[in-house]
């Protein structure tokens, strides 16, 4: 089932949680709502479910305006961050709950319910836990039970609110893969909220980036990661180096340094922010080199697949820190020493007009 939200606005006192949000979630997709805490992603999810009410705007489920439809008639499945399993019921009773609450006319018999519950428990690979209580399960198991419970009523959409947020890193990684697999089997339209960029990029078909109650960018994981449209998205997805500069004659000037051939499309004298990912910077040790930003080597971290070089800004960039990712061979070639002055030359640089940027979103 497709989900559409139109011009949603939600205010909590003086805090704007959602600021005129319009989005379309096509049928059968797994979409991640990604953003820092307080960006409005959970509020949006709860409004789609009907657990919260928007101040204005509408929620359209499968073409019908559902804004006035009661939660229990929206046929959504909701998975909570802290599972919200019924503590006093066994796993079986938890999963059966939705079916048993149906009106007598549409309620299946206990036998049918039992069959269905066991099928669902097999789906989440926890059939052997049917008689346990939630407190006897691990966090990962609880969340799988919560998912089975949500699926029992055959919801038209599945909404997951930070489903792996309360789990430890290893379990989170397993469940991520497992959720993706499950979605590929069921093809139910799903939206999940997360603040973990890795999780969003790894699991989702599409990512909706949110900040301060606004949508920053919508796209496939590849699009948002490799072609960020806003400084916020750039800064939020992965580590990034930020330079303040001015474009003169198609060159980027940062203090006394020049980076050649950047910002051709910018007017003479434009103030800009420039972004480069750590792997998009090259280190040049040749003192005669004119092109590049001067920086002082601080530390070289050589473990893992790639080595990282931490540098401190000097001159106009004093107080700033930069990070460059290089192959270990390249680091050996350079034989950097702490305190050495080098030039940073970006292989790729993304510029944004300075006045187009909300200062907070760079934090």
């Amino acid at each position, binding site marked *: 089932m497709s989900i559409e939200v139109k011009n949603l606005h939600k205010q909590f006192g003086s805090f704007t949680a959602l600021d005129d949000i319009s989005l379309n979630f096509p049928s059968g997709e797994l979409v991640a709502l990604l953003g820092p805490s307080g960006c409005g992603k959970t509020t949006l999810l709860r409004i789609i479910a009907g657990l919260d009410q928007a101040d204005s705007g509408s929620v359209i489920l499968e073409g019908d305006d559902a804004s006035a439809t009661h939660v229990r008639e929206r046929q959504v499945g909701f998975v909570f961050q802290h599972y*919200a399993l019924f503590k*006093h019921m066994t796993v079986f009773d938890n999963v059966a709950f939705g079916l048993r*609450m149906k009106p007598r006319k549409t309620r299946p018999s206990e036998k049918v319910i039992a069959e269905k519950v066991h099928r669902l428990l097999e789906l989440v690979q926890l059939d052997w836990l049917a008689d346990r*209580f939630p407190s006897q399960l691990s966090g990962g198991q609880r969340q799988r039970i919560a998912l089975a419970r*949500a699926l029992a009523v055959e919801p038209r959409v599945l909404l997951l609110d930070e489903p792996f947020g309360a789990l430890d890193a290893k379990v989170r990684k397993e469940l991520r893969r497992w959720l993706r697999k499950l979605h590929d089997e069921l093809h139910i339209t799903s939206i999940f909220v997360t603040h973990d960029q890795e999780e969003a990029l790894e699991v989702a078909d599409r990512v909706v980036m949110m900040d301060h109650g606004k949508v920053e960018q919508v796209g496939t994981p590849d699009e948002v990661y490799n072609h960020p449209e806003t400084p916020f998205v750039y800064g939020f997805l992965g580590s990034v180096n930020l330079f303040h500069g001015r474009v003169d004659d198609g060159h980027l000037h940062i203090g006394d340094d020049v980076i050649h051939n950047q910002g051709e499309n910018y007017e003479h004298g434009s103030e800009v922010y420039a972004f480069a990912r750590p792997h998009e910077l090259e280190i040049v040790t040749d003192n005669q080199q004119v092109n590049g930003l001067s920086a002082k080597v601080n530390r070289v971290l050589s473990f893992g697949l790639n080595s990282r070089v931490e540098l401190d800004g000097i001159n106009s960039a004093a107080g700033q820190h930069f990070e460059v990712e290089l192959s270990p061979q390249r680091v050996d070639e350079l034989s950097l020493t702490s305190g050495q002055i080098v030039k940073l030359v970006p292989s790729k640089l993304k510029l944004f007009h300075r006045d187009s940027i909300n200062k907070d979103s760079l934090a």
Partner: protein
Amino acid sequence: MSTAITDTSLKAKPSDRLFKWVEPTKFEHNVATRENKWIKIAVISMGLSFFALFLLLPLIAVFSEALRKGFGVYWLALTDADALSAVRLTLLAASIAVPLNLVFGVAAAWAIAKFEFKGKQLLITFIDLPFSVSPVIVGLVYVLVFGVNGWFGEWLVANDVKIIFAVPGIVLATIFVTFPFVARELIPLMQAQGKEEEEAAVVLGAGGWQTFWYVTLPNIKWGLLYGVILCNARAMGEFGAVSVVSGHIRGQTNTLPLHVEILYNEYNFAAAFAVASLLALLALVTLVLKTWVEHRADTNASAH
């Protein structure tokens, strides 16, 4: 997670929980934390003698005074027509006040813990009013409102409805005085539990009553029972408010505590203590029940 929630909820209950978590022996075995032997003896004996003097002794006195003239007299005092009528009235008042306060208390706690509305803080304050105001004032207020010379006095007399110096007044006063017990017990418990489980139930298609019956109630049942037990103890033992509105008509508007007072004022000590021993027994039963409920809630919390 679930245990963490129940733990906070249990903190609301005054009990000997401290001793369950902090093992005293741990400090005793450690030279660095061990206290001087004499301090230990002094503190323990102070506590014990206080308990013996102010709690145990009076309790023993009640029973020994009651049985001083033998079991026959004791039995006669209890089976006296006026005493039996006082027992009946006390049971009646409690059996009306407790269920009503159970419903009010659950409703108030539900509203406060699960919803946001204007005047919530005011409501919480009002729930505590019966605890903060002297019961005698409560009685007087009822006399002012429903008495012959009160606001509704004329209308009540004209329609031949008797509230003051009659059973309805006693029931009203009892309800007022015992109002906070259930609500006070449930509010912190329900607040600590949050509303996620209820939300989960509603999303799964459960109606309001189904959600309450299958999700909320099982989660609060031990706290609720605890509140009801305390509410009942107070309802049966209430003296001040009931004394003002009752009129002390023997065999008609006398509750157990009032009956004790009357007998005592008539220098009928054996009978007064015999009836008092009933109330003391009630207190003991309440304590046993309370401990049992706490124990159950505890094991429930650790099992779930």
